[in-house]
């Protein structure tokens, strides 16, 4: 028999930790933003995003992609650690014990509340050792300088860090489709570095996601 009283934790039912009205707090007296746990937040406007691209291109040329990827990795690692602490405290359950569906639901909400856009997981290549993350509405991709190649370096860095932390082993991430190139969404393939090398080469040759995946899995 189900006892309804047992379904409650201290009279509370946890739901969406990342509801934006609760998660983000502004203090205009100090000019500060913070999360509900008290971590300082910064809002990065379009002009700064454009400036990051322009400044990096000016000073580092081609290396700017790598700088952004590394920045994403650095940030992503901290992002994940914070996410893990926030979520496991809130749901009173270690992240490793959460179901994939619940983990993903929290990650999606977190991603949205940070204004990073929408995110989803495509598990159809899971058995081949790859995860595919799809995203929409990325401000970094919207503002990227025009190029023949996918532009989500920052996101690729973040996602590689997040899933490396989650898996407990070093994983790489390659973007195989991009809204800036007219795709319906951004697709990021996550897997072991050596298994993704060929994907990187195929992206350089401007193959699309549908052509890359079967070859990667062959």
């Amino acid at each position, binding site marked *: 028999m189900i006892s309804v009283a047992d*379904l409650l934790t201290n009279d509370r*039912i946890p739901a969406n930790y990342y*509801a934006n009205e609760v998660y983000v707090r502004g203090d205009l007296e100090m000019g500060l933003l913070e999360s509900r746990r008290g971590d300082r937040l910064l809002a990065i406007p379009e002009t700064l995003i454009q400036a990051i691209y322009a400044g990096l291109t000016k000073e580092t040329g081609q290396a700017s992609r790598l700088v952004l990827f590394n920045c994403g990795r650095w940030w992503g690692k901290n992002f994940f650690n914070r996410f893990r602490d926030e979520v496991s405290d809130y749901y009173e359950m270690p992240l490793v014990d959460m179901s994939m569906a619940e983990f993903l639901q929290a990650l999606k909400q977190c991603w949205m509340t940070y204004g990073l856009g929408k995110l989803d997981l495509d598990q159809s290549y899971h058995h081949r050792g790859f995860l595919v993350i799809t995203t929409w509405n990325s401000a970094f991709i919207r503002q990227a300088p025009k190029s023949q190649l996918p532009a989500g370096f920052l996101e690729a860095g973040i996602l590689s860090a997040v899933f490396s932390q989650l898996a407990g082993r070093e994983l790489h991430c390659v973007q195989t489709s991009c809204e800036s190139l007219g795709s319906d969404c951004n697709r990021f393939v996550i897997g072991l570095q050596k298994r993704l090398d060929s994907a990187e080469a195929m992206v350089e040759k401007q193959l699309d996601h549908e052509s890359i995946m079967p070859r990667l899995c062959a």
Partner: protein
Amino acid sequence: MQPPFDAIFDEAEHRYLKPDELQEMRQYVFSLKDRVSTYQMIRDRELSLMQQVADQIQYTMPDAELAALERSLKNAMLSLRYCSMGMVLNDPSFVQNRLLGWLSDSMQIHNSSAIDRAVFRLIVQQLAQVLTSQQMELFQPFLNLAQAVLPAPVEEEMLTVAGMF
């Protein structure tokens, strides 16, 4: 509609509220007594009400997985909590922003529409016994918001002549 107090500051520097705007506020403020007592009623009867729902749902859906039932009951309780607060504040956007996105996501992930629908049906039945019709009238619009995001039941594909070949 806009939450009752938002409008006060919106144009504060340009004009004062008009008599009809003040009247609208007055109506809300004087409805607060009923809103709060309805809230208290739902709050205080939550456990017994939901326990009855839980007993009935186990009876009507004996084959359903226990975990799935529990999850649906939890989501329903959560909805009751958010919707009743939305009623106190007379603010549908509160329910929209704080509950609905997350709720519909959760229901889709767990593909639990049949159970969710049955649970909600039972809740409405139970509420009708606990609340007066006036209280139900206050609460119903907010409950409807949550019910509106329940995924439609999956219809079995009907074979038609057009689909034969």
